């Protein structure tokens, strides 16, 4: 309705401006001035009314949106989404916590194994060292050096299998 009124005022203003132009054409300058002022006032009124209409429409729309946002159904819908998200989050958290527990278990097991391996390697290495000291006088220097280097290398690598093989080799050399 307001828009119709605005349009009507706008056309009126145009008509008045056209009339003023005609009057000016027929040399009625004084009346033309009055008409122009009236036309401009009407045009101003039209624009003011348009602004008021826009304001009213915007406020109506805003209030409608707000009412819709805070309505019971929307609030419940949001609550549903909240619980669904919470469930998904809970599942993800559970999977992560499981992974974390398994990771710490593996770390602990690896630590225990390494500790045990180190102890065994130390014992093996001590035995090999003693055997090498015993073998030193009877072995040629390059062979002894090679055995000693191998021993050092396996010990640094914590290579139990290599050390056992080396001990076997040394045992076989001793029996020879």
């Amino acid at each position, binding site marked *: 309705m307001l828009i119709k009124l605005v349009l009507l005022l706008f056309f009126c203003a145009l008509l008045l401006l056209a009339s003023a132009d005609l009057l000016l054409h027929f040399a009625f300058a004084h009346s033309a001035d009055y008409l122009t002022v009236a036309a401009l006032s009407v045009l101003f009124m039209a624009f003011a009314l348009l602004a008021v209409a826009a304001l009213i429409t915007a406020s109506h729309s805003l209030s409608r949106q707000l009412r819709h946002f805070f309505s019971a*159904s929307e609030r419940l819908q949001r609550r549903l989404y909240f*619980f669904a998200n919470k*469930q998904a989050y809970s599942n993800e958290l*559970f999977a992560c*916590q499981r992974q974390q*527990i398994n990771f710490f278990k593996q770390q602990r*097991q690896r630590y*225990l194994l390494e500790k045990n391996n180190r102890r*065994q390697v130390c014992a093996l290495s001590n035995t090999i060292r003693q055997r090498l000291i015993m073998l030193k006088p009877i072995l040629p220097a390059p062979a002894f050096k090679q055995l000693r280097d191998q021993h050092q290398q396996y010990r640094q690598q914590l290579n139990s299998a290599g050390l056992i093989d080396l001990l076997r080799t040394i045992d076989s050399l001793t029996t020879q």
Partner: protein
Amino acid sequence: MKPLRHWLFSTLRFFYAIKTKQLHWHTTHHAQQARLKHAQRLAHQDIIETLTLRSAQLEHDLAMLKTTHKAQLLMLKTQCKQDIKDYQAYLSALDKLKITIQTSYQHLPEAVAFTIHHHAKQLLNALWIADTVEEKLRCELRLIHFMNAVHEDACVSSDDAAVLSSLPKKTLALLQQPLL
């Protein structure tokens, strides 16, 4: 002045005619409008009730889920602690096993004693990294069988002084078998 009045009256008549038509339309359709509004209100209430129920159900499910997860995590933690304890016990048992075999067979080369220990540890690690339950069971059986063999050999050695210098035959036979 007269045409203007005439135009004004005709405009007013037109306006009132429209108002009358509107009133007439409202009177005829009032019952239907009321019915529709009532149905709309009922539908709205129905939606709200459904959503409330669903929300309560989800809240309950969430609480259940949290409780289940908590219990499962607690169980998993306990199981992990037990597994670590078992692993530690196995490692200590293997160390003791090596000492037993070394004391029982004093002439046994140290390389063999270390090999026995190394083999037992490999079996233990295979048991630890096994994925399926069947595989775990198979590895555990092999480890127990191996440890039994070592114990039996040690017992034979301590019972009979004649075999003091011989080798743990059962254990060495098991050592020849491939790991998996």
